[in-house]
């Protein structure tokens, strides 16, 4: 591609709308004498922008003003990029959003500001689109493409040419070719070397293993197409769930990342190392494997059924509208509920918890988040809310989640993570810090107030109680704690002394008493100010 007329159309897309628009505008760009290239923000090298003369950005917004999944990583890099990086770049932004959200088109606004901060020149003002974006986005494209076409090979913008370019386009244009008005160009990448390991399970022999293929495939190929190719050319017995690109049941795990394989390109599935990529494809964890990558979803759906997810609504006052009496809801609550329920794959959300695979009873984040949203829905009847609270407070509810960080790291897990955290806070408050969970959280928080440091000995004693401690004595836990066993720190004789010279606190035995941190009174003051329960 000749650099003198090149145009980059960069898209950040959650549902595919921005990607489709980017492809459409790239096609239209040829009519303006531009050679357009469409690029996904996912895996895009920020520094490669610095040599560009023309860049269009089409970016959607997810949830409460968040960047779409594929833009998040680039945004983080851009946030720490040095100013001046984009000197000489001419740009314009089309932002997609939904006015029912408080932070409308926030991602596009952020990119617009960021490009300017990094030194780029805005040729056409950003346009913010609501859900009905066809006409407004096309108007933006016509202005933006005309302006980009008026940038010469040296990157100089000739404003006086813009009008002439527009007039020539309107006079001569009869619409792009194609049955539907335009033809979406294919996004193509070079072939890359890939080492693809796939989990195999044969139920007839109950054997598991991995098969590995080393091959060269086009980088733009979706993982689903990779699986289809392997099945049709290499091993017809390979089993996986096939379907549309957004079919939630097709979900699999790639290097521990839970994805819909039709939505992920091979080149974006793993980092490029030593000239190639290496991926390990596994079935989603937390589900029973039927064969190879195909998992059984019935258990999750059965749990969902047992959670009684249906609505029992309360009688509410309606609003008189020209369409008749309609129920209404505070937009902030509506937006929050919408975000909690806007899940593109419940199996992926279920698998995002590392605990679901090891706890048969745990409902998992998929059902818990759905129940929590229902619990916070003002349309839900009070009796139904109490029923949901019983489910959330039960041993199979939110308490069964062992580590929220595993949920946070998967895709859009951050929002669900925060919602589940609220759910746990609510459960603990209702429980009054009883039981092991309540005691654990209460004593942990209390020991920090006491000295600024966690006191493991107090925690063990208060949470496990004498029976639990006795159990640890015979299960080897205490002896390993004393001896350090495979760990190497401290002097072993000190650990032995802990047995005969309590209090413990020597060697690797947790201390009975902590020394306070410097300015400990500040910590006490913070607690007194923020939470009188401790």
């Amino acid at each position: 591609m000749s650099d003198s007329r090149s145009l980059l159309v960069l898209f950040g897309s959650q549902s595919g709308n921005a990607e489709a628009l980017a492809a459409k505008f790239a096609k239209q760009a040829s009519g303006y004498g531009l050679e357009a290239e469409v690029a996904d923000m996912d895996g895009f090298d920020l520094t490669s922008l610095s040599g560009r003369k023309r860049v269009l950005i089409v970016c959607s917004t997810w949830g409460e003003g968040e960047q779409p999944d594929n833009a998040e990583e680039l945004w983080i890099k851009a946030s720490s990029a040095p100013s001046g990086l984009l000197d000489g770049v001419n740009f314009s932004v089309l932002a997609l959003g939904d006015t029912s959200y408080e932070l409308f088109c926030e991602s596009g606004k952020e990119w617009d500001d960021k490009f300017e901060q990094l030194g780029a020149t805005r040729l056409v003002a950003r346009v913010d689109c609501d859900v009905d974006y066809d006409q407004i986005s096309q108007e933006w494209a016509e202005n933006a493409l005309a302006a980009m076409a008026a940038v010469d090979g040296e990157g100089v913008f000739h404003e006086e040419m813009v009008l002439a370019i527009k007039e020539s386009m309107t006079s001569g244009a009869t619409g792009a070719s194609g049955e539907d008005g335009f033809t979406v160009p294919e996004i193509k990448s070079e072939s890359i070397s890939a080492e693809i390991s796939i989990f195999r399970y044969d139920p007839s022999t109950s054997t598991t293993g991995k098969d590995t293929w080393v091959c060269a495939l086009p980088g733009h190929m979706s993982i689903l197409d990779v699986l289809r190719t392997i099945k049709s050319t290499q091993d017809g017995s390979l089993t996986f769930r096939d379907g549309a690109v957004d079919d939630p049941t097709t979900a699999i795990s790639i290097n521990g990342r839970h994805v819909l394989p039709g939505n992920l390109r091979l080149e974006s599935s793993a980092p490029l190392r030593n000239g190639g990529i290496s991926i390990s494809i596994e079935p989603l964890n937390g589900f029973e494997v039927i064969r190879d990558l195909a998992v059984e979803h019935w258990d999750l759906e059965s749990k969902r059924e047992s959670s009684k997810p249906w609505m029992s609504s309360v009688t509410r006052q309606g609003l008189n509208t020209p369409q008749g009496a309609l129920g209404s809801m505070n937009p902030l609550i509506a937006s929050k509920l919408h975000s909690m329920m806007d899940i593109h794959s419940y199996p992926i959300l279920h698998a995002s918890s590392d605990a679901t695979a090891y706890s048969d009873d745990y409902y998992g984040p998929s059902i818990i988040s759905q129940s929590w949203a229902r619990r916070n829905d003002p349309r839900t009847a009070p009796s139904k809310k109490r029923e949901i609270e019983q489910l959330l407070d039960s041993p199979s509810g939110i308490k069964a989640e062992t580590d929220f960080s595993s949920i946070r790291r998967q895709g859009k897990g951050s929002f669900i993570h925060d919602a589940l955290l609220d759910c746990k806070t609510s459960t603990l408050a209702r429980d009054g810090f009883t039981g092991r969970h309540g005691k654990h959280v209460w004593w942990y928080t209390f020991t920090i107030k006491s000295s600024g440091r966690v006191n493991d000995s107090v925690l063990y004693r208060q949470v496990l109680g004498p029976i639990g401690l006795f159990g640890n004595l015979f299960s080897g836990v205490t002896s390993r704690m004393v001896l350090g066993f495979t760990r190497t720190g401290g002097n072993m004789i000190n650990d032995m002394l802990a047995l005969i010279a309590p209090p413990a606190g020597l060697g690797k035995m947790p201390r009975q008493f902590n020394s306070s941190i410097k300015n400990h009174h500040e910590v006490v003051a913070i607690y007194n100010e923020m939470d009188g329960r401790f």
Partner: protein
Amino acid sequence: MKYAYHPGNVAHSGSPEVAESMVPLVKSLGIELTYLDGATSCGAGIIRQVNQKLQLTLNARVFAQAESLGLGILTPCASTAGNLSEDLFLLKSNPILLAEINEVLLKTCGLKFTGDTSVNHLLHVIVDEIGLEKIKPMVVNPIDFRVASYYGPNIQQYGFCGDDDIYDPNYMEQLVQTLGGEPVSWDSRTQSVGAPSLLSEEPTVLKQAASVLNDAKSEGAQMIVSACNLSHSVLDIYQGKASQRTGLRTNIPVVHLCEILSFALGHYNTRYAQLRTRVLVIGD
């Protein structure tokens, strides 16, 4: 190279070997640490379960202390790095929340946090800042074992893991190779072992820990090197119990990144000799 030092939650109690080995290690690496004597526990993801703003304020106080020193924070604990990073991200991205927290900070401690600090795990400082090429000539005792590197989920998040990949990290594998070891490829390296719920959900946590330990053994590892103080002690202390509950083979030495680095750079030779013996005794 200067940092404000947060040793992690259990370095003063359950994992003293981490705090001990950090002392000679940072000297060898040329890192100057200023101890945050007034730093509280990071909350370990537990305090925020009961009161998120309480944990945010406690950590904002730590950030303000580091900021007043003009330093970024360094910690050898992945759990602490993850929790602090999460709270730092929240405060930096929400000016209204930051103002609210600062109001409490000012009233209770006379402190204010403007957002001018960073949280860094030792691993990322070594690879991104120091550079592995500088570590290689410093190696005195090669770690000539097959090593499974354990990251856990806390630091493997957007913006928390330097330039490493979130789902397919290889910083620790590169480091192990630099130290003379043979990195083992295994799937469980970013899996949680449920450390925040060890005492409250023990049956599930034991299965999680057993699965991670067994995966490392199955892939031929002779030891696990952990980037997390908390997971490190769970994986070691609960090995026997995890095996009893699950029937899986779980016996494998588990050491912290700080320990293995300090051994390789010539510190604690006796301990390293003990570790080598344990690898031989415990190995299949």
